[in-house]
Each structure stands twice: as structure tokens, then as C-alpha cells.
């Protein structure tokens, strides 16, 4: 085992790229909130960056990647970064320092928790969100991460494919978001009152940062500066482009080509290609991207407009449904020429079934455990702000600040 300077440089840069996705997400979500909640929405992502940045190094990494316990969770051998140093790990990414692998994984844990916040903005109590985030990383993210990526994890043993986190990050976050929405209830005034996004250019800037950072997310998941990284990089860009374009066309058919729709589509395309990026040929990004925007668009119509769930910033529709499609699409389009795994198109129908098992297992686990954690947090500190605080807006009621202050310019 010797360290490759090229691989190490790429993974450290990729880690920084993935970190930047979280402030990008903060702008993406923040622009969609109402004016009185923009600061609190941004704060949620930023605070998660700080909180999970600590939880991960103390026990999160160890529970995810420590010595396997029954295929279910990692042990405490990496607790507090014990045995995690400048030399490569004996198990993971043998050409880069173990610390580089650990911090790359840290950024995934951060953004996964931050993704959930979009579903509960404008009404969740900040202290409840902090408590929930620490519990969720520990009891949901770490086990699921271990199942899929940990050495000895039961889903990876089954042959489930997840290149960069379609199940670990997106299905996990999307389904957990839905469970939390069900516990928390709708925002007052939803549906009916107009809930106008305060700054769509901010949403577009955030989406741009997500797209940029996603190259670290997907191409970095090759864990080496190699041909596979380049292939995943290209597949990622193609899928985002195809999905953004498709959502634009759908909105155009209904009315006008929408900016909010186009950037949402691009993010959905990035979600869908995430599990597939290193298993499919780059051009498979086109069908994967086109389909995810159709699924995402109509998921919002059904979930929000018809069923009335106030998944405020459509986390389940974009990340949950997009992640499910991505996982299944990996089983359909996987090409043995890329990473050795074959999918349905190459005659290996059983891969789709394996993917489906992964989807169902992670979705069920995430939903149930999130529900339990949500109930616990509600009993401990109360999940929701009071009526007056919600009316005033979370910026002032939770943080004593406002985004756009001052009469003088």
C-alpha cells in the first residue's frame, strides 16, 4: 500500500467540492423560502455543517466504517479518529491517506442531513432540528452507510450497486424527510395562502454550486484520479443537463419555461445519476436524466398538490423519488465495460431485483427510525415552533436576526 499523490490530491479536492455543496444547498433552499424564513433556512444547512462535522469524527465515521458487527453497523475501533491516520486504511481506498477517505465521507454525511431540512423549513424548532440531526446521523445514516459501503455491510454483500450515494444519501434523506413532514404537519396557511419564494436567482446560484460540487461527489467516489473518475464526471454532467432540459420542456408545455423548474430538474438529474455514475456509460445519463425529471415533476403534483403533504421544498419528490429511480436505473443500465457490473440491458435482470431490495430496505429502515427519533425529539423539546413564532417567521423567532434589514440603504 503506497500513497498516490494524484489520487490523494483528487480526493482532497473532491472533499472540498462536496463540502461546498452544503452552502450551495443553503442558497438553493434559502431562495425558495418566504422572506421571513430565508435566514433560518440557510442557518439549518450551515449549522448541520458544524454539528455533523464534529459528530462524524468522534463516533459517526467509526459506526459507519469501523469493524463490521453483523453486517449492520461498524464498531468503535475508529472512535475519535483512533487508528485513522496519514497511512492508507487497510480496507478502504488503499492509495490515499485514511484521513482523506474519512473526511471525504464526512462531507457526504453533512449534506445528507442538510438535504432533509428542506422538507421542514418555516416551522421546525431549531433546537429540535439540532437534536434530531445528531440522533439521525448516529441511528440512521451510520447504519445505512455501513450496509452499503462498509466492509461487511449486508447490502454490499448482496451485490447492491450504489456508486456515490443514491441510497445512502438521497433515498435515505428523501424518505426521512417524508416521515418528518408527517410528524410535523403542514405550515400554517398551506395549502391556500401563496407562499412565494423570496429570491429565485439565489436558488439558481445554489443549484449551480450543487452542480459544481457534485463532480467531487460522483467523480470523487472513484476514490482515485483515474479513467473511472472521468467517466463518472461526464455521466454526471450529461444527466444534469438532460434532466434540467426536460423539466424546462415540461414547464413550457404547461405554461412557460421556468427557471425554478429548470434548476430543480438539473438537481434531480444529479440525484439520479449518483448511484449509477461509475457503473453506466456516460451516455446512459441521457435517459436517466430525462426520466427523473418526469418522475420528479409528477411526484410534486401528486404529493403536494393532490395529497396535500407539505414537503415544503420537495425533498421526497426530488431526492427520494429521484434516488429510487437512480437506484433502479443503475440495475437497468449498468455496463460491464465500466466497472464489471452488468444490468438488465446486458441481460442481468437480477440486478434490478437486488437494487429493489436495497431501495425497500433503506426506505423502510429510514422511515421507521426517523419516525421514532422524531417522536423522541418531540417529547424532549417539541418539534414545532409556536403559532406566534411561525407567524413572525423563524428568522426573528429562532435566531433574532433578519435577512434583509434596515430602512436605510
Amino acid at each position: 500500500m503506497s500513497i498516490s499523490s494524484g489520487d490523494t490530491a483528487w480526493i482532497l479536492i473532491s472533499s472540498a467540492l462536496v463540502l461546498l455543496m452544503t452552502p450551495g444547498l443553503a442558497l438553493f433552499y434559502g431562495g425558495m423560502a418566504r422572506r421571513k424564513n430565508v435566514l433560518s433556512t440557510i442557518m439549518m444547512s450551515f449549522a448541520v455543517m458544524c454539528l455533523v462535522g464534529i459528530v462524524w469524527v468522534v463516533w459517526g465515521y467509526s459506526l459507519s466504517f469501523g469493524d463490521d458487527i453483523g453486517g449492520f453497523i461498524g464498531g468503535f475501533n475508529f472512535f475519535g479518529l483512533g487508528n485513522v491516520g496519514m497511512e492508507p486504511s487497510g480496507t478502504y481506498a488503499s492509495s490515499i491517506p485514511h484521513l482523506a477517505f474519512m473526511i471525504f465521507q464526512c462531507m457526504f454525511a453533512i449534506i445528507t442531513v442538510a438535504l432533509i431540512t428542506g422538507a421542514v423549513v418555516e416551522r421546525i424548532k431549531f433546537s429540535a432540528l439540532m437534536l434530531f440531526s445528531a440522533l439521525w446521523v448516529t441511528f440512521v445514516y451510520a447504519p445505512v452507510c455501513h450496509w452499503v459501503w462498509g466492509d461487511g455491510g449486508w447490502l454490499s454483500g448482496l451485490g447492491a450497486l450504489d456508486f456515490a450515494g443514491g441510497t445512502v444519501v438521497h433515498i435515505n434523506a428523501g424518505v426521512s424527510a417524508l416521515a418528518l413532514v408527517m410528524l410535523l404537519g403542514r405550515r400554517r396557511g398551506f395549502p391556500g395562502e401563496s407562499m412565494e419564494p423570496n429570491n429565485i436567482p439565489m436558488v439558481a446560484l445554489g443549484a449551480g454550486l450543487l452542480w459544481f460540487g457534485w463532480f467531487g461527489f460522483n467523480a470523487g467516489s472513484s476514490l482515485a484520479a483515474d479513467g473511472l473518475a472521468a467517466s463518472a464526471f461526464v455521466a454526471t454532467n450529461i444527466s444534469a443537463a438532460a434532466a434540467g432540459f426536460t423539466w424546462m420542456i415540461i414547464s413550457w408545455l404547461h405554461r412557460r419555461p421556468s427557471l425554478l423548474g429548470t434548476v430543480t430538474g438539473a438537481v434531480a438529474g444529479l440525484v439520479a445519476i449518483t448511484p449509477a455514475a461509475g457503473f453506466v456509460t456516460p451516455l446512459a445519463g441521457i435517459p436517466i436524466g430525462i426520466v427523473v425529471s418526469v418522475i420528479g415533476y409528477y411526484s410534486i403534483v401528486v404529493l403536494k398538490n393532490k395529497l396535500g403533504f407539505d414537503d415544503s421544498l420537495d425533498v421526497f419528490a426530488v431526492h427520494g423519488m429521484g434516488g429510487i429511480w437512480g437506484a433502479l436505473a443503475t440495475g437497468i443500465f449498468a455496463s460491464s465495460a465500466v466497472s464489471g457490473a452488468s444490468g438488465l440491458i446486458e441481460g442481468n435482470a437480477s440486478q434490478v431485483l437486488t437494487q429493489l431490495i436495497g431501495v425497500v430496505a433503506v426506505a423502510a429502515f429510514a422511515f421507521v427510525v426517523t419516525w421514532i427519533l422524531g417522536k423522541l425529539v418531540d417529547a424532549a423539546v417539541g418539534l414545532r415552533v409556536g403559532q406566534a413564532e411561525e407567524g413572525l417567521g423563524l428568522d426573528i423567532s429562532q435566531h433574532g436576526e433578519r435577512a434583509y434589514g434596515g430602512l436605510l440603504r
Partner: protein
Amino acid sequence: MKKIEAIIRQERLDAVKKALEENSYFGMTVSEVSGRGRQKGISLQWRAGEYRVDLLPKLKIELVVLDEDVPVAIDAIVRNARTGDIGDGKIVVLPVESVVRVRTGDRNENAI
């Protein structure tokens, strides 16, 4: 003395301002306002579907004029703010008790 408050379309401001200037009415205050009349509102797009915005952005022009100047000023505003479509706005005229120029302390007609 009368105060004229005119709610107009944003895109008509320059024309209205120019017409008032041509009639030697330079002083005015303009502010951004939201409101509705018979136009009621418009719908905008969310990621999927639409939502209704029932208060629309308009501009409010306020100016104080001598009683005898009211018809000329109103005529200048109406001619230039009108498009003929719903949403052209409204003008109200209010009596003014007194006016003071802050710099000099001038009162009433001398302060207009």
C-alpha cells in the same frame, strides 16, 4: 391646496413624470406599493403547478398642487398612465391643510 395620489403601472412612470415636468410639476414622491383592483392578481409558477399572487406591484406618485392646477395634473397623469387594459390604476385627490418647506420654513402656497 390638494394632494394627488396616483397609483400607476410601474412601466408608465417615466411617461407620467415627463408629462408632469412639462406642466412644471417637479416635486413628487414615488414609492413601490402592492395592491389590487379589478385585475385581482396573476398566477406564477412553482416547480410543478402554480400559485396565485393577488397583490400586484404598482407605483404610487404623491404630489401637492394648488387647487386650480388639479385638472391639469390629473389630465397629464391619466393621459400617460393609461393603456386601456385592466390594472391601469387609480387617482385620488385629498384636501391639504398645510404645507411646510423644511429648509426655509415657508408655508403653504410658498412651499409648494
